[in-house]
């Protein structure tokens, strides 16, 4: 049997080099080396070769196979590289096009400040207590040393639901509910919605307060200021200070108004603090003995302090929001600014 291996080799290599892609190359490979391929057929036809020629014939066919395999492989590498190049070229993008936007939600600035306040005071051992938003006259006023004829009731314009029930005007109501349930030591923070019938450029009929209460033995006014200093430093700036000045709330005695040094100007005076260097931030004082008595706590043994602040006010100071109405309009362009 005559074998023109040279002719087969040339033809096969030429065909493989002509294959444009890996699929065509595969077909060439199958044509020669596949199960029904030309070279495979030669091997299968060995039986017809006379016995004495078989070794030489076999070697010749085998050499051809090895040679073709190597040639195909080399060619395959070339084709693959070419294909990859084409693919990469086709995948080319305009890198200056805008990125895809994911949706991001936000928490309301009031929630953000509320969470921050809770963080600050929780670390000092405060528990968080939320009282009802609809309150009885007793918890909102009477138990807080503000009986019906008390002029301090005029300080707050109250929404009434009946003679007895009202929308709480202050989170201080939560003080009483907690102290009725619990004896000192008490460290409580009571955040929530409060309501006053005030609706103008700087007042909202609903806003949020955060009430703080500490009752224990040996609590002093100095402790109140120490704690508020800590709050101011964490909330506003490392260098923030507080200033106490006399004020009046029926449920504290002495009562103080607490100013925080203006973070915008560092206390030098600017439009934000109206040139005073101080910003009024909260009301506080030593818990009135009558309030403790009303809750069954011995005022001769225990003293305490309470403080209350408007969360909106803190948020407005902290974020530079200039209009309280923005906080209940829920304009997404406003809300989306409060992302993490």
């Amino acid at each position: 049997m005559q074998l023109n291996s040279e002719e087969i080799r040339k033809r096969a290599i030429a065909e493989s080099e002509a294959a444009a892609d890996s699929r065509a190359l595969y077909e060439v490979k199958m044509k020669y080396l596949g199960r029904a391929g030309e070279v495979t057929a030669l091997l299968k036809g060995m039986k017809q070769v006379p016995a004495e020629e078989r070794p030489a014939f076999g070697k010749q066919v085998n050499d051809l196979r090895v040679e073709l395999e190597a040639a195909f492989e080399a060619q395959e590498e070339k084709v693959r590289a070419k294909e990859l190049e084409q693919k990469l070229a086709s995948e080319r993008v305009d890198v200056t096009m805008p990125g895809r936007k994911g949706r991001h939600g936000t928490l309301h600035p009031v929630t953000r400040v509320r969470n921050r306040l809770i963080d600050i005071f929780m670390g000092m051992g405060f528990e968080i207590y939320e009282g009802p938003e609809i309150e009885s006259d007793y918890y909102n006023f009477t138990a807080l040393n503000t009986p019906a004829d008390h002029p301090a009731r005029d300080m707050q314009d109250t929404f009434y639901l009946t003679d007895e029930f009202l929308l709480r005007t202050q989170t201080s109501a939560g003080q009483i509910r907690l102290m009725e349930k619990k004896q000192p030591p008490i460290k409580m923070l009571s955040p929530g919605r409060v309501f006053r019938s005030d609706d103008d450029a700087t007042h909202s009929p609903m806003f949020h307060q955060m009430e703080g209460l500490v009752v224990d033995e040996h609590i002093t006014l100095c402790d109140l200021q120490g704690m508020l200093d800590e709050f101011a430093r964490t909330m506003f700036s490392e260098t923030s200070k507080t200033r106490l000045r006399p004020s009046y709330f029926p449920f504290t005695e002495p009562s103080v108004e607490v100013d925080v040094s203006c973070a915008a100007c560092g206390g030098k005076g600017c439009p934000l603090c109206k040139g005073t260097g101080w910003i009024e931030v909260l009301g506080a004082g030593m818990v009135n003995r009558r309030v403790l008595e009303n809750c069954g706590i011995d005022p001769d043994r225990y003293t305490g302090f309470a403080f209350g602040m408007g969360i909106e006010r803190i948020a407005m100071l902290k974020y530079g929001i200039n209009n309280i109405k923005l906080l209940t309009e829920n304009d997404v362009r406003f809300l989306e600014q409060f992302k993490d």
Partner: protein
Amino acid sequence: MLVPLSWLKDYVDIDVSAEELQEKLFSCGFEVEELTYLGKDVTGVVVGLITETKKHPNADKLTVCTVDCGKYGVKQICTAATNVFAGAKVPCALDGATVLHEGGIQKIKKGKLRGEDSEGMMCSGEELGINDDFYPGAEVNGILILDGSEPVGEDIRGVVGLDDYLFDIAVTANRPDCQSVYGMAREVAAVLRKPIKAPATDYKTAHTDVKIPVTVEEPALCPRYLGHYVADVKIGMSPAWMRRRLALCGIRSISDIVDITNFVLLEMGQPMHAFDKNYLAGGKIVVRRAKDGEKIVTLDEKQFTLTHDNLLICDGEKGVALAGIMGGLNSEIKPDTRAVFFEAAKFARDSVRKTSRALGQRSDSSSRFEKGVDAYTSEIAMDRALHLVQQLGCGAVTDYRADCNAADLAPKKIETTFAKIDALLGVEVPEEEACAILRRLNFGVEAKDGALTATVPPYREDVDGYPDLAEEIIRMYGYDHIRPTFLQRATVTHGGLTTAQKQELKCKETLKEEGYMEAVNYSFGSPKDFDLLRLPEDAPERRAIRILNPIGEDLSVMRTTLVPSMLGNVVRNVRRGNESGRLFELANVYLAEELPLKQLPEERRHLVIALWGEGDFFDLKGAVEALERAFDFMVKFVRGERNWLHPGITAEVKMGEKTVGVLGELHPSVAKELALEKRVCVAELDYAAISKKFAKEIRYHNLPKFPDVQRDLAFVADEEVTCAQAEEAILRACKAVRSAELFDVYRSAQIGEGKKSMAFRLTFSPEEKAEKGISPEAADTFFHKIVGALQAKLGAELR
């Protein structure tokens, strides 16, 4: 409250500037809301003497005056005023001066008037901002003619009383005793460490046989009533000094007797009233509750119909004054009044407040009584008024006085120790310093061996315990003595959030991650909101709690659903051009057991979620499913119906049999009513109900030893067959199926009209304790079991 500096100086030798005084008052608890220099708008105006007047050569209506302005020289000034004459002293605005003109400030420049030099301007009272009460003659038509005693060249402000400061002081509710000039003077004296000069209260009396008996039927509402009879009254004008002071505090002069009552109100804080004695029928006074329907016409000629709740001052027959608020027209002081009965009383503050509110009638008197007037001051004030009657010579003070007193006038004593005071403050105030402060505040002080007995001044009804003393001491000692400490001796406590509070935060965070922004809305809304949602008349949401005194009808009912305010947010956003958005609110609704409220209502947390513009029902449903994943609970969505939602795109959210929410696309008609063109989807969930099912603690489940096996199953079913039905059939058919997730729905002509193809991905999990995995053969068996079940239950055919 308005307090002129010049008036304060009657009682205290003030040797600090007005600004320094403002600071001092601030530090001891009195915020000066506004400090005004009265002459701030009038500058460069001096006293001028007109030495010569002549006709203007070119203008008939102008006069050319030569005005001697002393050290400022002699000026020629043209004027159109006709009341000028040689020898008159007038206010003369020099070149560069400022005066008031038509509500603004006008700058005066020299110039020519019709060819004649005019080197300034002579001023009217109006141009100086003063009226007759400030300076007699100020309201004359023309130039203000001064009284002639003033030196030429003198700054006019000192001459007409504009060189003065007005303090507008905020007085806290516990200090009604400071609602007066003298009351403030006491504080000023204490803070400046100066003695206080009390106003004169002495007078001589003439005997009278006239008696005007006073009966107080309601001592609880009128703890003290003083009356004093003044005879031989001649009504006239009060003197300039008194009129000026009234004017500074915003009260117009009426007549001397009436002015005295107002002056004492301002000076002592005691509202007073003067009756024309001859109009008191029966010559007596009875303080009683009004009869229901009884009428009175007050001084301002308004008629009021009264009730039993209103306290009325009556004569022998009828009401003559609305107690503490305003006198009656029937007994008012008139020019021909000859005999006066003065009243100085203490009326209970809530009685005055309630009557004042109920009738809508307020006055300087009522506002002081509402804050509190003390029974001690009533007497001092009466004496002061009688002194002024004598000083002004407008009547003869008789020796008849009625005094009905039910108030306890015995001085209050507080016994305590300095140690207790220091313990509250946290600082040690030197005992001597503490005593000195209390004495300056007119407390009687006895200190011995650390013990302190303080006698409270009779006008300080607010002081009744040692913490009050502590406050008095520290506000004068100075809050800058407080040294911040950090709970040096307090017990360590365990704080933190409750599980429910943590879950709320996590809920908000989860929705935030889903792209929703948190909204905060008012807790009240409009009753019309229920109509917008087309809720039936008997819908539970309509049983909302009403606010008795709302700001307006649209903020008058407590929310029973959070949907309307959320829709309001969407409307506002779209109107402002925010084409798409996602919002949520977690807040209370208020559910009344019965109306009107007999007990506190239930405050129930609801969660409302909405999206508009971009996204649809399934995006919103994805948010609810995100919560399911976050808190590991399950709800079911079944087809539902709400009048305000799209009838085909509404799901009821169920937990077991209980509906815990609704989710859907806003009904096109409701959207149209709100002018919303974008698609809006809303869900409202009963957060309180679903949060009960929140997984509280994480429990670990052992991992299976063998992996899951997945198979995809596509079948053709009738259009009516729902995903939930198919899912349920699959899960029930074979317990090895852990999940069946729909991933494709396909409709085509080939499949047939009214049919659809649904494709589910099935996940088979081996049991935890299984000894071998799920073989392909076992999976095939499960698969065929499921196909069989789908065929039997839903008539579905394998594709």
